[in-house]
């Protein structure tokens, strides 16, 4: 009896695997798209299946049997074959039929259903525009809103009430003022692009207060908190320079953000960062969540060409999820940049990956895309110095480098105020070293500090560390400007003789 059952299973598998493939190809529009979540076609060895009563499966249709044998579909429910067989063992044929058919029905309902957007939003003669949005393929906006685009329109200086010559304005009253109006690095303020140009600003900080991340959402307060925290000024002992003396730095204020959807922000951020680049500045972007990486890197690519830009992405998260219902979010910045050809996989270097979202499927995908990833496992295995050396070497395959720094790359001991913290991260010293070296040894075209959630840290620690990371990059840029570009340069005065 049991033997016969094995035969049955094997035969079923043969039939169903062919069927599954048909399903899959219909599903993926006949071509394999690496950007959709891959649908595994591998079948578990039938011999590994525990024996079950043959007739328990007798009521199942071929589709239901196929579903039962598909690990990807089972995983969608948090199930494995073993877990399913535990369930089957507890049930009779009727119950098995109900169990499997209801799961399959739910699974099949996951994708957009033809006609699901056909319901009327008019109830009893009254328009209720939101009553059908969950079923709709788009989110309607209120085009009657007064000043629909007002948020992002920049007032030209010609209409200023009080005229002034362009250029950064210092808000300090005293020569040696501490405190006062908080600005990034205590730098003067540039209000419009012409202020950047006139002042020949080399590095301009800009806040992008957008908190729509998948973790704790407080990054919209990061720009304000980092402006109010010290650590962005003064001499760097390792680099042997004071970047504020070497570089023209300005605080370019904040980019306007819409707080109810990431999608409505992409275009304006991309355009504003682009304007900063055209004014010959290196933007230092303070987010905001990691969805901002899409428009910032896009702006780099727009202005320098995707093939000329390496992106060093320091993050616990790979941010490469595919096939989601929304087009933009922190979890999918990397996959969207690749899909839209705004970055080349071989020019993306990820450092610090760890945590459960970096699963086999994710890592396989990174490999398929040619992305150079360096997990914390590798850091532990090879040592930090080696990883730093490889990352810099990989960054150097293009002429320009952009750094996307997510606070979660640091261990929560150093950055409890990260929106998506994961233990087992870099130390502040490790991160400073990599950032300083990248900024000295490659040509930096932009830097972003993302997903800092100030309210998670009742101490000053996260904000101070974030500023010190950015200071490390300023130091590197200043070293490079001063002609110090050799590998791993440390100022001799900082070392004992």
């Amino acid at each position: 009896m049991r033997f016969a059952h094995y035969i049955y299973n094997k035969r079923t598998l043969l039939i169903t695997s062919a069927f599954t493939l048909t399903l899959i190809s219909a599903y993926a529009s006949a071509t394999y798209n690496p950007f959709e979540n891959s649908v595994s076609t591998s079948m578990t060895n039938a011999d590994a299946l525990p024996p079950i009563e043959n007739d328990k499966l007798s009521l199942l249709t071929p589709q239901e049997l196929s579903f039962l044998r598909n690990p990807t579909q089972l995983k969608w429910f948090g199930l494995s074959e073993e877990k399913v067989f535990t369930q089957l063992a507890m049930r009779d044929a009727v119950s098995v039929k109900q169990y499997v058919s209801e799961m399959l029905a739910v699974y099949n309902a996951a994708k957009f259903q033809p006609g699901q957007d056909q319901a009327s939003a008019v109830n009893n003669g009254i328009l209720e525009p939101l009553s059908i949005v969950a079923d709709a393929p788009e989110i309607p906006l209120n085009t009657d809103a007064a000043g629909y685009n007002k948020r992002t329109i920049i007032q030209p200086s010609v209409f200023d009430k009080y005229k002034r010559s362009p250029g950064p304005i210092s808000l300090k009253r005293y020569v040696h003022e501490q405190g006062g109006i908080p600005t990034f690095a205590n730098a003067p303020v540039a209000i419009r692009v012409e202020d950047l140009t006139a002042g020949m600003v080399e590095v301009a900080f800009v806040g992008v207060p957008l908190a729509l991340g998948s973790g704790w959402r407080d990054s919209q307060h990061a720009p304000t908190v980092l402006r109010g925290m010290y650590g962005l000024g003064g001499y760097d002992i390792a680099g042997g320079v004071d970047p504020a003396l070497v570089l023209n730095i300005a605080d370019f204020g904040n980019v306007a953000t819409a707080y109810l959807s990431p999608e409505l922000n992409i275009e304006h951020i991309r355009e504003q960062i682009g304007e900063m680049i055209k004014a010959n500045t290196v933007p230092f972007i303070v987010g905001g969540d990691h969805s901002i990486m899409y428009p910032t890197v896009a702006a780099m690519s727009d202005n320098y060409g995707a093939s000329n830009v390496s992106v060093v992405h320091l993050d616990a998260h790979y941010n490469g999820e595919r096939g989601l219902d929304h087009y933009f979010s922190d979890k999918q910045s990397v996959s969207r940049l690749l899909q839209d050809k705004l970055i080349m996989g071989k020019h993306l270097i990820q450092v610090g990956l760890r945590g459960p979202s970096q699963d086999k499927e994710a890592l396989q995908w990174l490999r398929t895309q040619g992305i150079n990833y360096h997990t914390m496992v590798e850091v532990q295995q090879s040592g930090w110095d080696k990883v730093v050396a490889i990352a810099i070497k990989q960054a150097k395959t293009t002429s320009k480098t952009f750094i996307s720094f997510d606070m979660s790359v640091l261990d929560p001991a150093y950055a409890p105020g990260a929106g998506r913290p994961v233990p087992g991260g870099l130390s502040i010293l490790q991160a400073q070293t990599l950032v300083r070296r990248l900024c000295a040894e490659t040509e930096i075209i932009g830097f972003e500090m993302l997903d800092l959630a100030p309210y998670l840290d009742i101490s000053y620690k996260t904000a101070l560390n974030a500023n010190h990371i950015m200071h490390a990059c300023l130091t590197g840029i200043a070293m490079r400007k001063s002609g110090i570009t050799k590998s791993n340069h440390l100022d001799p005065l900082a070392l004992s003789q």
Partner: protein
Amino acid sequence: MNVKKLVTSVLAMCAVSTIVISGVQSQIASNVKQVGEKQKDSAESEFVYIPSVAGQVPERIDSATPGLMAAEPLEDIPEDVMAILDSLPSDKGDFIKSGKGEGVVKKDILFELLISASPSEAEGYVDTVMSIYDKMEFKKGRDIEAIALNKSSPDFNSWRLKRPQSMNPDREDGPISLGRYLGGGNSGIPTFANAPVALTAEDLIAGEVDVAILGAPLDMGSGWRDAINGPKAMRMLRRGTGGTDVSTMINPTSVLNIVDYGDVAIDQLSTERSVQEVRSMVREIAETGAIPIIIGGDHSLEYPNVAAIADVYGKGKVSVVHFDAHLDTGRGRVHLLSHGQPIYRLMKEAHVRPENFIQVGLRAHYSKSYYEWEKEIGMKYHTMAEVERRGWDDVMDRVIKEATENTEYLYVSFDVDVLDPAFQPGTGTPVSGGLTMREAIPIVRRLCAETKLVGFDIVELAPALDSSYVSALNANSLMFACMTGIAMHKEEITEKGFISELSSEHGQDDYYGEGR
């Protein structure tokens, strides 16, 4: 404002009103009287109030957009400027005269520029104003009208698909108790009010559930965010929700069948997309006859919550008491809903009549135009200014009176920021000068006891902002106050301001001179 025209339209409206549905006739009659009274001082207040009709969009709902100036033709244009404007091509001169340019640049600044400009420069300035104005307003074909979603996503609907109940072992319908011991006490699993769990409408019906508490972790507020963790914080604190209420000697848990109905699915990237599901889940609870208590989540939720209640109990048949530091009447914004706009949307879609919206605790910094508009459409607001002027007890009595005078049913929406930050630091948009817990507890208990309550929500609890337990404890205590009221109502204790004789008087002497 053309008062005469308005009066005419009011009279026409009244004529129409008299032939509307017989059930609301007495109500309309009283409203007509009100209109008559208001007309007398209309010259002074400039408002003419037109009563709304249940189930119809209020006549004057879009009469004004507070905070935004409508363009009015410029007056007193100096002669020299007028000469310049007249010298321009007529469309350009007319544009400036129309006042539309005020949204781009104030006229004083523009006039100064024009006076000292050459003719071609002057035209250039006007062109700049016009091109900025053109960019500002929505233009079809140029601006997006909707946020596109990825229709080809294999998981387009996944966020709100329900897990088949057949994946669980067979069980009879009814609430699932998570306790193990005969001695009772807490089970280890944190649930709202330590209640058993219900997963389906059938569970609610089989369990004859009176109150189903639903988490709705929508986290898209405009201030500090963490409302996503509001439901979790209230479940995990496990204090403040059990036992006997001292004021009434009522133990809601023993009087009522209470369940934790889990969380409703939320799309954390879109308020608009989430509300259809919230509305459907709240309706699912209300349709069984149970009272939904929704734990947010941000205040956008008031829209789907109350719309669902109106789906079940009738359009315009439910009054709403809205506790909040904020008016939440925002409108005319790019997004159709946010935590600043739920009230407008509820009235705009005729779920609730403006007359039946009662706001309590308002004190955030809204301009006069917001209050003027509320007066005009008949809303009832009670600011902290009124509390300052009249004292809390009088305001409370007035709110309770208003909550019961127009409708049979009441919904209470409680934004925790109505409390002073001393009592509620854990909220996204706190405003100082709010209610104390000793003011909030009795009004909530009384509203839930003395009316036919059909729904209640607690929103905007953001635990990350409070390193102590205080915010979650107070939120739980307010839920307890309402559940006490619901239990009193079930026990038919609806005497106004009922206080237990036993717990409020030891009776060993006649200290208060009321007899022993």
